[in-house]
């Protein structure tokens, strides 16, 4: 463990190289897992954003209950 930025960057590079060197089937399995994770994060973010928008619509006096969401 170190706070030496050069060493941190080197270890990141080495890790990326080791991932790049994996067999393609293994990399595709990792893609599957990454996709699941990205969808989960997106789901959380969307849910949070929608909740925040709903709150904004209710609480903001200028809105008067109108839906201003144009996304």
């Amino acid at each position, binding site marked *: 463990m170190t706070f030496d930025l050069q060493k941190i960057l080197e270890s990141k*590079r080495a890790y*990326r*190289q080791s*991932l*790049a060197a994996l067999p*393609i*089937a293994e*990399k*595709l399995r*990792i*893609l*599957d897992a*990454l*996709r699941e*994770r*990205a*969808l989960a994060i997106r789901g959380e973010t969307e849910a949070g954003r929608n909740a925040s928008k709903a709150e904004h619509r209710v609480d903001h006096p200028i809105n008067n209950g109108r839906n201003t969401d144009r996304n």
Partner: protein
Amino acid sequence: MEADGVVDRYAIGGAVGATFFLEPFATLDVDIFVSVRPEPGSLIVSPKPIFDYLTARGGKVEGEYIVIGGWPVQFLPPGTPLVSEALREAVEMDVEGTQARVFTAEHLAAIALQTGRAKDKARLLQFIESGRLDSDRFRAILACHGLDGAWRKFETQYLGDEP
């Protein structure tokens, strides 16, 4: 699909294509580039035969995508001469006994330069750092498709010694 005549040729591009050469990165879909001929009696090229073929085999259409094995797959025509060339020169790669055709690393890197979004620039840097590019071949592709200027700008911005 190629063997059944649905498409003339296909190749995987995008982030999944890049994963054949680099470390895996998160992506939500698969880009498959296809060359197709117009249906008889039509001048317009349509993805309908592809969708019909794949839905008959369990694929599910969702908007512009067809979901296969849980992955949304987008079929794209080659929109530029560079992508057409990438499709022509794509290479066969083995995935656990199954052959898959993929754009070459040099074409993927050149397409990233041409597309030029932030994530494409990041991917181009990854290609350069990976040492997977044949630099003569890469430069020849850039020259052939008028990308020398874009490359010089990229080099100055991201590969220069000065911060």
